[in-house]
């Protein structure tokens, strides 16, 4: 079975057909979840990054901020990923062939990994040098923004 067969099978599955054949307003509704999820996720990363640079909620500790925002991050992440999967399954063959989509997925994986390794574990324990964490947080914020831009570019390419 080739990759193409898998993609074809995905988009001809019940869910794939449902997404593709339904009204374009269903597509819009899925996009709404995608964008609201992205906003929540970006805001959390922004708030944490700002705090690392001594901006934003600077009177609160880094630990308090990460603790309060982590559930919101994963809520946003859940929104974007689940709506993203729905969109992908609906048109798997076309998406997989789109260069912007391929870049987006690669960057998304890197950003997710950084998030998982850095924000959940390292940030709260502060065992790494501050400068390193600062640059990593800045990189992470930039990555998520670029993931969003690459996502927007899918429609233009």
């Amino acid at each position: 079975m080739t990759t193409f067969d898998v993609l074809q099978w995905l988009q001809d599955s019940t869910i794939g057909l449902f997404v593709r054949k339904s009204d374009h307003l269903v597509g819009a509704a899925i996009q709404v979840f995608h964008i609201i999820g992205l906003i929540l996720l970006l805001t959390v990363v922004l708030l944490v990054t700002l705090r690392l640079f001594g901006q934003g909620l600077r009177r609160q500790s880094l630990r308090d901020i990460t603790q309060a925002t982590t559930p919101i991050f994963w809520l946003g992440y859940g929104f974007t990923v689940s709506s993203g999967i729905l969109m992908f399954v609906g048109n798997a063959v076309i998406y997989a062939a789109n260069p912007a989509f391929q870049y987006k997925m690669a960057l998304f994986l890197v950003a997710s990994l950084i998030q998982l390794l850095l924000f959940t574990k390292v940030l709260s324990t502060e065992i790494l040098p501050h400068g390193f964490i600062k640059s990593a947080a800045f990189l992470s914020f930039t990555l998520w923004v670029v993931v969003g831009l690459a996502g927007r570019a899918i429609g233009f390419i």
Partner: protein
Amino acid sequence: MSLLLDFAQVLYDSPIGTDIRESQFLYPLIEAAHLLGLAVSSGLIVLTDLRLLGLFMKDVPVADILHQLRYWVIGGFISTFVSGGFLFWAEAATIIENPAFIVKILFVVLGCANALWFEFKWGRSVTQWGEQKALPTAVKYAGLASLTLWTIVIISSRFIPYLSQNQI
């Protein structure tokens, strides 16, 4: 109304409007600035609203959240507003008759009105009520209203291309 339509047509036909519309990179880039501004302003507004509703950083005084995030929220809002203005400039003649866009603008106005009302009625005196365990009911309603209004703004925005006469 026709005056408004005429004005939209003038914007649409102007060199700047035409340039943005026909440029391969300008339009997506302005959209990107719009999204980034949104993540800063709307995102931080959502967090502030959640604080007013007692669902986020409950132990932090409301004044701390309002004051420390103020300039970021305003900066993000300006970025969203200005980039949105340019997007409108490029699409004015068609978008002005788009039902999703009309709903969006209506709710932007309501969202701003709610924010201004909150600022003058409550924001100025936040140090007097912001540290109580239970916040005044009106404050919670303002938070809920803000959350609802801005969510509707985002939803209606995403529907703009889907309800457009000529698909963007």
